[in-house]
Structures are given as C-alpha cells and as structure tokens.
C-alpha cells in the first residue's frame, strides 16, 4: 500500500523522474510512493534513478500500457 500516488501518465522524459524526485522529498524515510507512467523509457530510467539515489523499487508491474512502480524512500 502506497503512502502517496504520482500520476505521470502521458508525460515524457525527464518529467516522470523530476516529479518523482519532487514528491519523494515530501515523504518520510520508509514511506512508499506509487508512480504511474506511460513512457516506455521509464522502466530503465526508474531503475537507474533508484540505483543512483539509493531509493528502492519494491514492486513493479505493467498493464494496458501503464507502468506502475512502488518506490520506497531511503533514509
């Protein structure tokens, strides 16, 4: 269960990442952000973003062209 939802559907690179970063800043460590995106590049990009920033993708799925990421904010 996510603490916050970010609907980034229809947005293209780099907007989903920029909005994710902004929203993560409003969360406490350990809280989870759910991101919905339609940009096919977001699969690789969210993985790279999380590896670099230390945040964790705890769940990831795809359906009807929508990619869903559950990102747990690191400390």
């Amino acid at each position, binding site marked *: 269960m996510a603490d916050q939802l970010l609907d980034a559907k229809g947005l*293209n690179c780099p907007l989903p990442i920029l909005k994710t970063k902004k929203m993560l800043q409003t969360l406490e460590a350990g809280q989870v952000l759910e991101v919905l995106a339609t940009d096919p590049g977001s699969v690789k990009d969210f993985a790279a973003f999380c590896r670099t*920033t230390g945040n964790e993708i705890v769940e990831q799925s795809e359906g009807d062209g929508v990619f869903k990421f559950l990102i747990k904010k690191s400390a």
Partner: protein
Amino acid sequence: MTENIINPKSMSIIVTKGTLDWGYPPFILATTAAAMDVEVTMFFTFYGLGLLKKDLNLKVSTLGNPAMEMPMGGGHMQMPNLLGALPGMTDLTSSMMKDMIKKKGVASIEELREAAILSDVRIIACQMTMDLFEYKHEDMIDGVEYGGAASYMETALKSHINLYI
C-alpha cells in the same frame, strides 16, 4: 593554490546553442542529474545565452540540418534543407515542432528551465557574450550569476562530468 577535490556527483555543462532542438539536451540532463542528487553547473555562452532570456521564442530550422524529418501520416517526411531559406519556413517548422512537443507530453524549455532553477542548478551566464550581443541583465531571468572562463574552469576542475553542448 587550493586543491581541487572532485565531487563524484557533480557535472558542468557548457551550453553554446540556443535553438529549440539544441536547447533540450542541456536542460534535460541538468534537471535529471539534479534529481539524482548531482551538483550541476550550467555555463551559457554565445547562442546558448539566449536560453536565459525572460521571453523565449525558440526556433528550429531545416537549414543546415539534413537529418531533420517530421513524423507524418505514419511515416516520416524528409524536410528539404533549402526549405529553410524560404520566408516564414523557420516559423512554420518551429510551430510544428512545438505542437509535437505538446502532444507527446514533452516538457517545454521554459518548464525545464524552471525545474533547473528550483532544483538549485547553478546557472552562469557568460559576461563577455552579454557585452558582445548587447544583452542587459534585466533581459535575463533571475538567479543567474555572471562570470567568464575562469569561473567555469574553477567549477570544471571540481566536476566529475564536464560536457560541451
């Protein structure tokens, strides 16, 4: 002499071009890097300086750009180089490109620039170019530092990634 300690998460970009197409890479990289906790400095010089003007009216031309093709009816239409020499053609290709940008959910340069400023990207405008092209500080957005090659070099020596676009 102070020692240059390189921050592994730092980047500088020299921005030299101010057209609609060339304006994207520096701002996309700068904002994304900032979102990934990278300390970013952008140095705007020559035609890149135009990207810092309060009012942007960016254009893209087919002239000198033989790789340009526009998606059309499921295929791609090659844009003849010489088309750009005709009056009004640059405005036309520019507004076509801006329509595409909007439709595809791509950010505008104005939005990316705003995002860069909000994420503390350091922006340096080349004072020599300001003088050369007779720009005034009030023509430019707020939050810009004015400096020259030495200001850039000091930053570049401490940056892990240095790009020229």
